[in-house]
C-alpha cells in the first residue's frame, strides 16, 4: 500500500485543509510504491516552506534543508551515493527565488535528480507574499496594487541547458502528474517538474476562490494537454519537453 510509505501517525499534517501539497504527497507516494522506492533506496530532500514539510511525512530518510538550499544538498547526496534515488520536493519560492542561483547551476551540471516544484505562485508559509512565479498584476499581501513584474519563465530557464527535462502539470491532473513524476525519475539527468498547486489560505481566497475545490476546477478548466511532440509548452499547457 502506498500509505505504508507515509508516517500516518503524524497526521493530521501541518497543512491547511485543501492545500495542494497533500495531493502532491499522495501522488508521489503512489509513484514510489509503483517503482519500489522505499527507505532502502530513496531519500527526499526539501527546503523551508509549507512544501518542505512533506519530507517529514515519508517513511524514508528526509532532509528539510535551509530555505533555498535543497539543490546543493541533493546534488552532494547523489554524488556520494549514486545508487540512491534522490527526490527534491520544494516550493517555487524556495527553488526559483532564494535558491535561483543553485537552480541555474545545478541544472547546468545536470546531476541525476528529480525535482518536484510545488508551484502555488506565492510564498505560502510566510503569509502569501508575491514571489518570482506570481503572475503579473496579481494582488498579494506584498503586491497590493498587483505584482509589478512578469514571472520567471521556468520552462525557458530549464531549456537554456544543452540537456534538459521540464514537465508542467497540476495537482488536479493526477494521472498526468504521476506520469510526469515517473518519467522524471526515469530521466538520467536533472528533471524539473513544475506542478501548479493551490494555496487556498494565503492566496486562493484573496483571488476570489471560496474553496480549494474551486481552485482545482479552475486548473481543470484552464490547463490543457500539449499536442503530442510539442517542443514548447504554451502558458496553460501541461506536458513534458526534454532533450537528452
Amino acid at each position, binding site marked *: 500500500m502506498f500509505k505504508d510509505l507515509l508516517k500516518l501517525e503524524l497526521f493530521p499534517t501541518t497543512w491547511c485543509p485543501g492545500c495542494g501539497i497533500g495531493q502532491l504527497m499522495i501522488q508521489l507516494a503512489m509513484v514510489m510504491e509503483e517503482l519500489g522506492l522505499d527507505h532502502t533506496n530513496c*531519500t527526499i530532500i526539501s527546503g523551508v516552506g509549507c512544501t518542505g514539510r512533506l519530507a517529514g511525512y515519508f517513511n*524514508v530518510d*528526509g*532532509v528539510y534543508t*535551509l530555505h533555498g538550499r535543497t539543490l546543493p*544538498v541533493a*546534488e*552532494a547526496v547523489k554524488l*556520494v551515493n549514486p545508487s540512491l534515488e534522490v527526490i527534491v520536493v520544494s516550493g517555487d519560492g524556495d527553488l526559483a527565488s532564494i535558491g535561483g542561483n543553485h537552480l541555474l547551476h545545478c541544472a547546468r551540471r545536470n546531476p541525476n535528480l528529480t525535482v518536484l516544484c510545488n508551484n502555488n505562485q506565492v510564498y505560502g508559509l510566510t503569509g502569501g507574499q508575491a514571489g518570482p512565479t506570481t503572475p503579473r498584476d496579481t494582488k498579494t499581501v506584498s503586491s497590493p496594487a498587483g505584482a509589478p513584474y512578469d514571472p520567471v519563465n521556468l520552462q525557458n530557464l530549464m531549456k537554456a541547458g544543452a540537456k534538459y527535462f521540464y514537465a508542467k502539470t497540476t495537482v488536479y491532473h493526477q494521472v498526468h502528474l504521476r506520469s510526469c513524476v515517473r518519467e522524471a525519475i526515469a530521466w538520467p539527468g536533472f528533471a524539473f517538474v513544475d506542478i501548479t498547486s493551490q494555496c487556498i489560505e494565503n492566496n486562493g481566497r484573496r483571488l476570489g476562490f471560496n474553496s480549494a475545490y474551486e481552485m482545482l476546477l479552475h486548473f481543470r478548466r484552464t490547463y490543457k494537454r500539449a499536442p503530442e511532440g510539442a517542443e514548447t509548452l504554451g502558458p496553460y499547457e501541461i506536458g513534458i519537453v526534454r532533450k537528452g
Partner: protein
Amino acid sequence: MKRLVQGNEAVFLGAIRAGADFFAGYPISPSSEILVLAAEQAAKDPGFRFIQSEDEISAANAIIGASLAGAKSFTATSGPGFTLMQEAIGYAHQVEVPAVFVNVQRVGPATGMPTMPAQQDVMQIKYGTSGDYYPLVFYPNSVEECYRYAITAFNAAEESLSPVILLSDAFVGHLNEVVDVDAIEVEAIPRGRPSLGTGKRFFTGLTHDEEGHPRTADAAVYREWLSRIRTQHEKVAVHYSDFEFKENPSSDTLLISFGIVSRVVAPLASQFALFRPIRIFPMLSHEIHECAQSYDKIVVIEANDGQYAWLVERELKRDIVHVPLLGGRINLDLVKNGLSEKLRREVV
C-alpha cells in the same frame, strides 16, 4: 619522506589522511590551493568527490548533504566566503552534521586585502550564525600542525557531530616548511552515523525532539536540546585542550598569541612568558586562568583590533592590554613597538 610542504597543502593532506572523500568550494584567496588540490585528487581518485560550487552558500550546504550521505566532507574559504557559509554552519549545528570548514583568514571587512594575513574572523567564527551554539575551533601555527589539526578537526567533528572550524591565515596557509607528513601519527575516527538511505529519519533545521519531529513552540524541548549540545561539545573539547605555554619566572608579563602571530612573538620568550591556545574555542578557560595567575600583566597580541583580547578579559575578569597588528603587516618590530607603547617601556 621529508619535503617542502605548504600550509594549505598540509591541510589538504591531513584531510585526506583523516579519510575525507568529499570537497565542495568556491575559489577565494588565500585558500584556493586547497580547492585546486581537491580537484586534482578527484581527477585521480574516483572515490574522492569534488564540486566546484556556484558560491559559498552552495559549497557549505553541499558538504552538509555529503556528510549526511556518509562522506567525510570539507570546504575551504576565507572571511567573505565564511560569512556566506554562516547560515549553513548554524544548520549543521541544529542538525548535528559533522563537517570541516577551513577558514584561511585575510584582511577584512568585505573584500579587504585579499592576499594579506589577518585574524579578524575570531568573532564571526564564534558568534556569526544565528542562535546559540558552541563551535569547536582549532588554529595551527606551522605546516606540521596544519596537517595534524586537519585530522583533529575531522575527529572532533565526528565525535561532537558538529561543524568544526580549522582556522588559518594567509601567512600560515602560504608558509613552506620541511616536514615528513607520513611520519606524523594521528588516529582517524571513522564515520559513525548511518548514511541517508538506511532509515526513516527526518533531519530538520527546525527545533526538534530526539526523534527529529519538529517542536517549534516548546521551550522545554529547546532548552533540553541546547543543554545536551553544549555538554556534548564540552566533552569533546576536553579531548583537545591543546595549547603551548612557556613560563618565564623572571617576567611579570604573559603574552597571549595564536596562529601566525605566535610564530612572530616566539623570539620574545627570554623576556616574557608566552601562552598560545591551539583550541581557540571553546576557550581554554581553565588553562588560561592557571597560566595567567602568576603574571601581573596579560597582553593579547593578535592581527585584529582586540577580538580575542576582549574574550580573554571577560574570561579572566582582569584588565588586559591588547596589541593589534593591522592591515596585514605582522612582524617582530611591530610587535615590539606595540609592546613598548602599551607597556610604557622599551621592549627590544
